[in-house]
């Protein structure tokens, strides 16, 4: 009998294969590998979606009945899902294939960490009273769309730096989109991430107010999400008002993503209200 854990393990391997295909497409200059990569990515995404859906059903069968967004395992699986969804959208919208080299490994790494890390339990457990709210789904989805935007922006920033190092115009670098296009893509992804992080922080604040009567309590996760928001707000001002472009923006975007990672993982080392996820 197929269960969600199995489906999600399969997803992990499919995503690994996708990364390999994109890297192959880039290094061997084979367009069809990238096309195949996208086809496989869509299959992996379908599998990922089914896995999350089935896990939701299983939680009802176990009598808990909650959305699969309640612990680190579930959030990492969902993180992969949002990054995959966003990347599929970006490739179709901007018609650039090879950029998947710098985005698909992130999709694989998140779900691989969820599946393989011994510290992350994939057990479905009941929801603690504080998480029982209709805000859970909206808050998690918006936060993770934000994280996904910043993750893809991070991938593109790395690509920008790699591209700008390449002096040889015939080599690997020349197969990447032009610096101007990568720069614009990074900026678009940051704006997407910023909008959703904003909504994520706000839904969290409204939720906190309905559960505890305080929309802001300077809990470490809240504060770190604000730090992340401030870093990307700085980036947007530098870009729009001070004319920063290219390498400088790429570095700020990388710094911003470090803050995202700390908000996501690092904060769990500190005490606070979000200690469950």
């Amino acid at each position, binding site marked *: 009998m197929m269960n969600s854990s199995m489906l999600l393990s399969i997803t992990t391997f499919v995503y690994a294969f996708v990364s390999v295909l994109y890297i192959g497409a880039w290094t061997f200059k084979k367009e069809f590998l990238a096309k195949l990569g996208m086809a496989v990515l869509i299959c992996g995404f379908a599998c990922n979606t089914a896995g999350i859906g089935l896990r939701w059903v299983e939680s009802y069968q176990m*009598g*808990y009945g909650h959305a699969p967004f309640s612990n680190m395992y579930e959030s990492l699986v969902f993180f992969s899902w949002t990054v995959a969804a966003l990347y599929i959208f970006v490739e179709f919208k901007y018609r650039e294939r090879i950029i998947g080299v710098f985005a698909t490994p992130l999709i694989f790494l998140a779900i691989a960490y969820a599946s393989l890390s011994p510290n992350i339990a994939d057990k479905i*457990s*009941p929801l*603690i*009273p*504080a998480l*029982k*709210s209709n*805000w859970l789904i909206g808050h998690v989805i918006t936060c993770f769309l934000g994280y996904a935007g910043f993750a893809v922006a991070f991938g593109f920033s790395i690509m920008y730096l790699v591209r700008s190092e390449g002096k040889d115009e015939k080599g690997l670098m020349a197969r990447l989109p032009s610096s*101007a*296009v990568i720069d*614009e893509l990074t900026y*678009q992804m940051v*704006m*997407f991430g*910023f*909008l959703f992080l*904003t*909504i994520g922080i*706000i839904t969290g*604040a*409204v*939720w906190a*107010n*309905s*559960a*505890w*009567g*305080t*929309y*802001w309590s*300077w809990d*470490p996760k809240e*504060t*770190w999400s*604000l*730090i992340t928001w*401030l*870093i990307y*707000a*700085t980036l947007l*001002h*530098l870009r729009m*008002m*001070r004319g920063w472009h290219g390498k400088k923006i790429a570095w700020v975007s990388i710094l911003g993503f470090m*803050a995202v990672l700390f908000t996501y993982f690092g*904060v769990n080392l*500190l*005490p606070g209200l979000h200690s469950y996820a």
Partner: protein
Amino acid sequence: MISISRPSGLPGQVWDFFVSVRLTVATLALLAFTSIFGTLIPQNQHPADYINAYGEFFFRFFNVFDLFNMYNSWWYRLLMVTLTLNILICSLNRLSPTLKMVFRRKPAFNRLSIREEADCERSARELRTIVENRLSQTFAKIHVQEDEKGFSAFAEKGAWTRLGFYAIHLSIIILLFGALLGSIYGIDGHVNVPEGTSAGTIRLRNSGAPVPLDFQIQCNAFNISYYKTGAVREFRSSLTILEDGKAVSEKEIIVNDPLKYKGFTIYQSSYGKLKAKTQKLNFTNRATGEKVEKEISVGRTVAFPDGARELTLKKVADDHTLMGQDVGEAYVCELKEDGKTPMEVILPTRFPSFDKMRKGEWIISVARQENRFYTGLAVKKDPGVWLVYAGFLMLIAGCFISFFMSHQKMVIGVKETPTGTHVSVSGTSTRNRIGMKKRVREMAAIFNPKEYS
């Protein structure tokens, strides 16, 4: 037209300071950087805990900079005030040009920054209908101006999206103002109400000062329900609001579902047990099924019914963890038997057969007893919260408008030449210049398909 501009003299210098985007960047970056400290140093703890953790020197050092309550410190507030003034002055500074751009009556036919040129064989008259048709596909407002050599067409859309800037920046001011209002006029209190009693006074969370309410909160019952694993499913308090002894409101509250009354919101926040002085244990003989009840209290020792062993109750743990599972309340005891080393015995209150696993002659369990609880309620009032929420909505709307919509303009100039016409296509957009470049090229390709194919 409203016009607010730089004043002269000293106010002008102050204006210059607050109008700069460098200041914005510096303030945002400083807020981001300094906020980190408050997440590494636990906030609002007892001074003794800090001295313990950091030593005398660092305690004084951190204390000088208010790092133990940094988000309320003067310097953190100063950063917020700076940001607010910065936003205000910048908003005023660009108000007049923005309004001109949004509500402009007369079109400007000057060429825009993204340009393409094309030579065309057709006449200006022919092109005019083509240009008007093409522009009307994307743009709502089109103006055409004829001159002796040809014509110019101006088209734009989304001029109003420039107001997205105001939505974002004013929303920040509104929500900071709402937060300020809440911190001045808000009430943040707490009260413990034992089951079956009522309370009419709360204590403030910060100072501990009592605040009388003009109503009474009665706790009819408090219940905890559990999952099969022993983890908590729900905390539930049945509350009645009394005024002059009469019930005026009634509700069962749970963690995410508070009770609202007269501007106050009452939240399920904590709970506790009104401890009975003595607890009862059941001793059941495994072989005969004989059952004996014995009274015990923390620190006391009781003899087994057969007198051969004795049990000491070390403590009653509220949240005990057994093999990684939270089993809730458990009695931690020590079992002494002649000739053997003392052994720890855990008796989870809700799992009376747990002790069977010890395989002892007597199975010990905590006797079922009626516990009385008190419910811990957070009682809050925040008159600024609606402003904060209004700020939230404006912020989301503003980000959406500024990031995903744009003010786009296109100007097409057509001049007759001896061989036909010369067309210049130019455009500009507040966002996505690459997309605009593409559109300008596509437009130019209509006039000279060969060159732009």
